[in-house]
């Protein structure tokens, strides 16, 4: 796909529009600038990862987009509406599964319906569907403590998807899992997202925070590399790897090159191989 075609698509419909977003918060030892001048557009159905070292504000940025933390300058527009308070049409997945340990798996998945004041009974079928989609149909009546870490995170994903939000915000969702489970969950996420199915228009928009470069390369359409103190965009990569992505994708030269380019940008290392096309300077 040429850069021009990509630009056209991006103009077609924006899901998230960040305009010079800045955030400073007060601490005991004075103000700390967490985010500076973040400008980014995410189009509908796009999978965008935020990568960077800890302290680069990527998790904060995710919460600013959700309206959970106030920005101090700039603006955020989600689905055409400026974000001034927590936005309802969003699914959130965190590093910890944060399940209610006294509830069954099914009742945990149904929690958003209850919190949003909807009738949970009307979502039971959907909850069962989601559990089936993630291979948990036999665990609907189990308690979270009876599940492995990967399974708990699947439950948390089902919960985020229950109300069918157009936007998923994921904050290092697989960061606490072991490497093999993590790879497995990556594939599963792409499958649930609908990678192999319909066009990008029917997929959810995903903003995905991770500190794993290979994970970002494997999952994303675009990768936003952030640098710390204050958190700002160091560079944006278009990942042109074909979809659906498979286990073999990780073994390709392109995959390795993307990973290396991002690594170089993050660490300031001078690479002796030519960078992949598609890298763009910060806006």
């Amino acid at each position: 796909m040429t850069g021009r075609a990509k630009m056209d698509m991006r103009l077609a419909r924006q899901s998230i529009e960040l305009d010079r977003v800045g955030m400073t918060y007060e601490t005991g030892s004075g103000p700390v600038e967490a985010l500076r001048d973040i400008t980014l557009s995410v189009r509908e159905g796009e999978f965008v990862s935020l990568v960077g070292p800890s302290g680069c504000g990527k998790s904060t940025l995710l919460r600013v987009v959700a309206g959970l933390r106030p920005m101090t300058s700039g603006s955020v527009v989600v689905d055409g509406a400026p974000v001034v308070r927590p936005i309802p049409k969003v699914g959130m997945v965190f590093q910890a599964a944060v399940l209610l340990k006294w509830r069954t798996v099914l009742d945990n998945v149904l929690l958003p319906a209850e919190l949003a004041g909807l009738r949970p009974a009307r979502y039971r079928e959907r909850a069962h569907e989601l559990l089936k989609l993630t291979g948990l149909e036999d665990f609907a009546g189990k308690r979270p403590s009876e599940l492995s870490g990967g399974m708990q995170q699947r439950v948390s994903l089902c919960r985020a998807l229950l109300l069918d939000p157009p936007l998923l915000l994921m904050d290092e969702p697989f960061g606490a899992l072991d490497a093999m489970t993590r790879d497995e969950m990556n594939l599963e996420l792409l499958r649930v997202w609908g990678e192999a199915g319909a066009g990008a228009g029917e997929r959810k928009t995903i903003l995905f925070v991770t500190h794993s470069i290979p994970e970002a390369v494997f999952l994303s359409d675009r990768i936003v590399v952030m640098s710390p103190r204050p958190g700002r965009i160091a560079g944006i990569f278009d990942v042109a790897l074909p979809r659906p992505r498979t286990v073999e994708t990780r073994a390709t030269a392109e995959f390795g090159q993307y990973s290396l380019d991002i690594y170089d940008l993050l660490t300031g290392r001078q690479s002796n191989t030519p960078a992949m096309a598609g890298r763009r300077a910060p806006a």
Partner: protein
Amino acid sequence: MKKLGRKFLETLPAILLFAGLIVVWELATTVFGVREYLLPGPATVLEAMFSGEINWAGHIWVTGLAIFGAFIIAAVSGVLLGTLIAWSSVLGRALMPFLVFVNTLPKVAVAPLFLLWLGYGIVPNMMIGALIGFFPVVINTAVGLSQIDDDMVDLGRVFNAPKWKVFAKIRIPNAYPYILSALKVTATAAVVGAIVGEFVASQNGLGYVIITSQSSMNTPLAFGALIWISILGLVLFGAVAVLSRVLAPWAEGREQ
């Protein structure tokens, strides 16, 4: 059956120690000839526990009621105050110093005042027990209600859930194990309070039996009352343990 067998093996050391102590106790009184008014033997105490010499059932009833009342008052007021503290930070800031002050008072010393204000009878004894037992409930309720993952709080905010709903669905169930472990402490405190009240002034109850039998040197009776008191305490403690297994089975094994 196999499980029952293992359970028996697990409790066997405790049973053996208990039986051994009773044997030593019996031997100490018979072999060394300790006098009965100093240390009555187990058989004598057992006999005294069921003797018709005093109205045991009446005393047990009065003390049991005082203990139960103290426990309920402490539990209800403790949970309410703890919820208020967790609900509003302004209320919390207003209430906490006062509650800490009340807790530092030697409650036993307040007992005569309670009798002065509330008159003799079962009510002041309940109040003393409640006063001793309510503080851990307040603290644990407040802590349990606020020990929620920040991400869980965000989840509630994303769905615009009203505060009461977050309390009902997330915070209160989360606080169950904290509240129940405080109630175990309260169960013991209620016993202490009720007996202290009876020591200070009363016409009946197991505390009254101990005080009067001590002055008449009827030590077997005092021992009998002591064991009845510990049985009442054990029953209440056991009831709380069962309640926590029913209400918060997910917390089992985490604390014990």
